[in-house]
């Protein structure tokens, strides 16, 4: 059974539709990176999946529960790291942990403090006095305190310095390795998420452009680096995106790479190299590749 699933889910504010007929599926233990430009609707989709926004149409299920109807029950199984951590500013993280513990049946208060200590965050300092990175790390520690089956993160590494970012991902990775938590992370941090995610969904102008295992995308997308004398028409079957010559050669992205067809066409394998997630994302969003 999918841990997270939504079908033709439409969400918005008032009469304004922000996410249109979105479909997602994350198997239990999977890690979905939800990518999209600013204003693409990532946060709105996350809010809809957490039962914070009423669906205009369609349906969503997390762990078999309807987030809109069963939010309270669902939140006992879900950990949330919001884009802007909003623990009440006067509360210390130790107090916040005690507060969360009172509302949940299962709560690892010692684990929260231990995790905060490991990340170098002062649990006795008011939340409002913590830095941006410390707040996010604190929110992650709280989100993991209830041993959630699903972890939802909304652009958590935005504004974090490289060290804090690495520490953040290390904690997420540690939890994944330890308990196999299902993760949905909306993010712009393509580099950070590339080594963690096993599935990617790209949201563009409110619609899900693609949702696929990362490996499939990596197999399908290639970064093209061919000599200047190469015939651009030869790349047409491989979904060329942003193909341009710069005098020294041809550069671009191939969105429909097929190794067998490439070999049959007599093209040099060195011209098509593995694409990173940023290349894939850019090709989809800017170049219209699907």
């Amino acid at each position: 059974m999918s841990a997270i699933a939504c079908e033709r889910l439409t969400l918005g504010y008032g009469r304004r539709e922000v996410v249109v007929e979105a479909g997602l599926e994350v198997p239990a233990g999977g890690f979905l990176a939800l990518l999209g430009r600013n204003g693409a609707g990532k946060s709105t989709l996350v809010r809809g999946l957490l039962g914070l926004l009423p669906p205009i149409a369609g349906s969503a299920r997390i762990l078999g529960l309807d987030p809109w109807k069963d939010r309270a029950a669902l939140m006992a199984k879900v950990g949330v790291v919001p884009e802007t951590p909003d623990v009440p500013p006067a509360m210390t993280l130790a107090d916040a942990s005690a507060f969360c513990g009172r509302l949940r049946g299962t709560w690892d208060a010692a684990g929260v403090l231990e995790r905060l200590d490991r990340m170098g965050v002062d649990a006795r300092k008011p939340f409002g006095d913590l830095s941006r990175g410390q707040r996010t790390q604190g929110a992650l520690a709280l989100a993991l305190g209830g041993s959630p089956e699903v972890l939802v993160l909304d652009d958590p590494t935005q504004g974090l310095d490289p060290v804090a970012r690495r520490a953040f991902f290390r904690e997420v990775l540690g939890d994944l390795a330890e308990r196999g938590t299902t993760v949905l992370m909306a993010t712009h941090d393509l580099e950070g998420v590339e080594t963690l995610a096993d599935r990617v969904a790209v949201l563009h102008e409110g619609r899900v452009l693609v949702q696929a295992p990362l490996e499939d995308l990596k197999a399908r997308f290639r970064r093209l680096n061919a000599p200047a004398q190469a015939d651009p028409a030869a790349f047409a079957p491989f979904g060329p995106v942003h193909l341009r010559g710069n005098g020294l050669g041809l550069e671009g992205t191939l969105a429909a790479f097929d190794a067998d067809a490439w070999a049959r066409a007599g093209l040099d394998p060195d011209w098509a190299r593995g694409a990173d997630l940023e290349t894939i994302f850019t090709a989809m969003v800017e170049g219209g590749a699907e």
Partner: protein
Amino acid sequence: MKAWVFARRELRENRLVWAGAAFAAVVGRALPWAKGLRGENEVLAAALALHLGCVLAVAGFLAFRGIPGDLGERRLGFDLAQPAGLGALLGGRLLGDWLLAVGSGALVLVPALATGVLPWGKGLGLMAFTGALAAPTLLAAHLLGVAWRARSLWILLDLGLAGFLGWSLDALLNTFFQEAPGGLEVLLFATPPVLMAVLLLAVILPLAWGRTDLARVRRYQTLILTPGLLLLPALGFLLLVWSRAGGPASIRQPLRKNAPAGAWSIVVGPGRLQRPLGFLVNGATGFHTEAPGGPCAFSGDGRHLLVVRPAGEDLEIVDLALGDRILGSTVRMRLPRRGASLGLGAVSQDARRALLILGRALVVLDLEAGRILREDKGERDFFLARYVFLPDGSLQETLPPAKGGARILDPGTGAWREADGSQAPVPR
């Protein structure tokens, strides 16, 4: 209980409110010693004003910036990420805010209660009243907070409706005053619970439907508030139509205050709510005239009417002895304690002296000279039936059975002396 977890956090998070209330209490205590503000009544007035202001300000502020503030930021609310229902979340936070408002208000009253300026019984009654008032304030401030953050023009409709509600209730109350005074009580008793129910629904239901979608929450609020606020005038109008059509006798019964003796009475007559004028009616002859404005009371023998003028400063005594003729004000004097609760004990037969309870003091006024003849402070309750003016204008007090006997207030010296038994009490 999850609601209590949220309430506790609200109390802890806003603990600075207590410091503010303590400061207000100290200011309230110190204020009457400022130039021109002296005396027990000033202390009491300052304490009451600070109490009411504190409760309403705390309730309004906390509810305005509370949950709608979290939603308004359109963040993933920390509270909404907890496994707690909306009822627990909203109820708990409102309960916490309510406790803060009422508690800080109580703190402001402590000096007045401790020093005896305000009796404990009255203090508790006051706290119960402001506590009840704090609940709709919390809800209204919450609604206003959502409306403010949603930046929706629907707020104009809500404010217009609230204005219409105020105007229509005022008009209805005045009409009931004139035509069916008994229905006034029905309207006054029905209004608070109906209004409270409308506010509760307008807070809870939109959040349940729209949650963090403020635009939707706002729309639903207007959908609930519009018929809700129109419901009260509609009910009042139906009640009025019913009373005009014959309704039950209890609705049509006029408000009447009868003199203890004699034929005079005051019947509520036409006039706006803010200026409730009545008719002074002689039941024996049918003579009637517009009653003087302001709180008034008949003397024990029904012969005089004492009136406190609307400003609350002047006392006027009206002689009703001549049946169909009002002699007009025979005496006017400035009340020694402005704003104090007034109770009329008795008026001498020559209307030259009057016995009043002003606040917690027994005051005998020499109306002719415009001065206080005697003032006995400190007692909380006076049994007015023990006092009677004798034909010579002196005041006799029948002492409690434990002491026995009586004593006389000498009108010349203003001092009490023991009655010698030759002066028989005159029936009131």
